[in-house]
């Protein structure tokens, strides 16, 4: 029996409202005991004195893009796994928007095998909701669940045919499957590169009103009401969508919502002079939207924060803004960026870890994401105050398109553990 004891840690427990000092005992990869602040040093097994640094459940990241199959040069399971470990992400929930899409049990098995071989962290795949993410026929949701799919999504391709979507939602409900939607009206947002407004007009870039997100969410909510499906909105990024989400929850619909760490920490003006690393989908919003979304995370209205890790190679980004690809890598920047919310006083640490670990785990039926007895010892040890300058050249991802390049960050991962085994230690 392997035994590991953490002492002298500030425990960020998503099931409590405050950070407490104490320790944990890990046996055979699971948390088996909580220790009080002044627990005597135990002699058996390995003992780690955390020196009053912070110990929290590893991040459960819902919506990571790994570019296998198709674009392994952008990100492989190996590189993504190393980046995740370095970022304190112990479970990656991967997206099916690869080339080809993960829309068959065979493709899913390939992905699961690659992940098991190459990634040092847990990988749980999502599968496409419709074949080829084309929005016409639903995938073999049952077989895909048997093969290990934890949720179904066409990612940023919205299923425009509501009859197709209604049937897929009904069928998924019959199997208890979770459907992850991308709330965005595809007509209104067609061709947009940024959020509409003064900045978009000054830069001469095609913009989309945040209303497109609310329209997409309203449509999806109506279909959930009709089908009783289990639904998660991948990214809610603007204030106008929040009342609809609150009403849907109050009405007892089985709906949760996420947002991205970038939309919580950056705004539309960060694009500045056409910096393509800040081109995201949906685009970055105004500051008042950012603050409203951060407040919704703090209140629990928005359940989940994701990295929406989207690797793009240099060639895809070194283009005029309208032509450049969307998305940013964030596995390694996730925790330091989240610390900006903590240091700004917008969201406290236990709430952050509910959004980054426990809630996504709960939504997917995973035991991870918490410090309770019996939970897997997927842990991250971090220092929320350690300052550093983000240098994208140091990233472990094969693609280094982070908007935080050159930014002053505060908060570093010191060590990461998956099932009690150390998978990362800072230099």
């Amino acid at each position, binding site marked *: 029996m392997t035994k590991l004891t953490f002492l002298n840690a500030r425990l960020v427990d998503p099931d409590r409202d405050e950070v407490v000092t104490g320790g944990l005992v890990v046996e055979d990869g699971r948390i088996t005991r909580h220790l009080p602040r002044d627990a005597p040093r135990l002699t058996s097994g390995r003992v780690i004195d955390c020196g009053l640094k912070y110990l929290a459940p590893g991040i459960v990241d819902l919506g990571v893009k790994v570019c296998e199959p198709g674009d392994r040069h952008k990100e492989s399971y190996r590189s993504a796994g190393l980046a995740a470990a370095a970022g304190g992400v112990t479970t990656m929930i991967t997206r099916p928007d690869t080339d080809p899409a993960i829309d068959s049990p065979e493709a899913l098995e390939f992905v699961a095998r690659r992940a098991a071989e190459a990634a040092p962290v847990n990988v749980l795949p999502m599968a496409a909701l419709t074949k080829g993410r084309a929005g016409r026929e639903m995938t073999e949701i049952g077989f895909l669940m048997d093969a290990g799919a934890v949720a179904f999504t066409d990612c940023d391709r919205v299923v425009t045919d509501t009859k197709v979507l209604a049937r897929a939602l009904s069928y998924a409900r019959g199997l208890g499957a979770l459907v992850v939607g991308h709330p965005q009206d595809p007509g209104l947002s067609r061709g947009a590169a940024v959020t*509409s*407004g*003064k900045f978009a*007009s000054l*830069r*001469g*870039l095609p913009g989309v009103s945040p209303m497109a997100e609310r329209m997409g969410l309203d449509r999806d909510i109506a279909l959930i009401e009709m089908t009783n499906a289990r639904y998660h909105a991948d990214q809610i990024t603007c204030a106008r969508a929040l009342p609809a989400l609150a009403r849907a929850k109050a009405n007892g619909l089985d709906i949760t919502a996420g947002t991205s760490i970038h939309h919580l920490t950056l705004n539309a003006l960060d694009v500045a002079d*056409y910096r393509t690393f800040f081109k995201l989908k949906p685009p970055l919003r105004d500051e008042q939207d950012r603050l409203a979304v951060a407040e919704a995370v703090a209140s629990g209205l928005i359940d989940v924060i994701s990295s929406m890790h989207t690797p793009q190679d240099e060639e895809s980004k*070194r283009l*005029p803004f309208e032509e450049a690809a969307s998305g940013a890598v964030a596995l390694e920047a996730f925790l330091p960026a989240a610390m900006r919310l903590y240091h700004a006083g917008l969201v406290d640490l236990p709430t952050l870890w509910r959004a980054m670990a426990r809630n996504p785990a709960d939504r997917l039926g995973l035991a991870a994401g918490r410090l309770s007895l019996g939970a897997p010892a997927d842990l991250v040890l971090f220092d929320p105050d350690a300052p550093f300058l983000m240098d994208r050249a140091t990233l472990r991802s094969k693609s280094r398109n982070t908007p935080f390049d050159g930014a002053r960050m505060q908060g570093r991962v010191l060590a990461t553990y998956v099932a009690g085994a150390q998978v990362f230690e800072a230099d």
Partner: protein
Amino acid sequence: MAIMSFPHRHLLGIEALRQEEITTLLDLADSYAALNRQPDKHADALAGLTQINMFFENSTRTQASFEIAGKRLGADVMNMAMQASSVKKGETLIDTALTLNAMHPDLLVVRHPHSGAVNLLAEKVNCAVLNAGDGRHEHPTQALLDALTIRRAKGRLHRLSIAICGDIAHSRVARSNIMLLGKMENRLRLIGPPTLLPSGIAEFGVEVFEDMAEGLRDVDVVMMLRLQKERMDGGFIPSEREYYHRYGLDAAKLSHAKPDAIVMHPGPMNRGVEIDGTLADDINRSVIQDQVEMGVAVRMAAMDLLARNLKLTRGTAA
């Protein structure tokens, strides 16, 4: 190092210019306008320098204007029609820029269909870059030539009431003009159907009108914009004829402006769509031909100033 009155390496947009820098440039352009009316039009401000015109989007007028401006100042001018070249073979904008940069040009004049593309290119080359229009972003020399035309016609470039009419949402000319005329402290009115007005317009510090008669009331200057053919049918406006009826400039609509108001158009004009043909040719009201003339002078001034900075920078480096 750069000359103090115009401390810029590139001319990418009006946004980066200050009021007094605009005045410096227009003063110099005035002297070139005088030169251009002489029998001998030659100066040597750009002697020995190489100017490359890279147009990723078709343009006859602007390209000719830049070419004449460069030649009158003694530059070696080369035109590259980018649609016909390696762009078709899949070369990226940055590779094209690096290839040209290796040939040591001194002035690069660039037009591109995407907003921000000229900024991107300017980051990658060692020479001075002039934006000849990028997407819907900026067209600085057009705004400067409009400003010079107004200044010469009205005797000043401040405290004028100026209306910009038409497709403002898709117009780089409108953006550069809004910025320039705002910096020079004029009252701006934007007139157009809501579908052709940009988002966030309420924050631009301008007055917005949807009705021409109301918007043109007592203005000193009427600037018409070109309506692109692809926007005419159903998408943004119902039809060409409805647009002409409501927003096309004719004598009746112009009668709401001041009696001595001037009429401008960046060209090429759609006669009978945004402007009445007779009005466009009325030498008492229309300054459209003066705009073309001032275009050469303004481009000479802009390239002259950038070349001076280039020489100073290189002198310091050597």
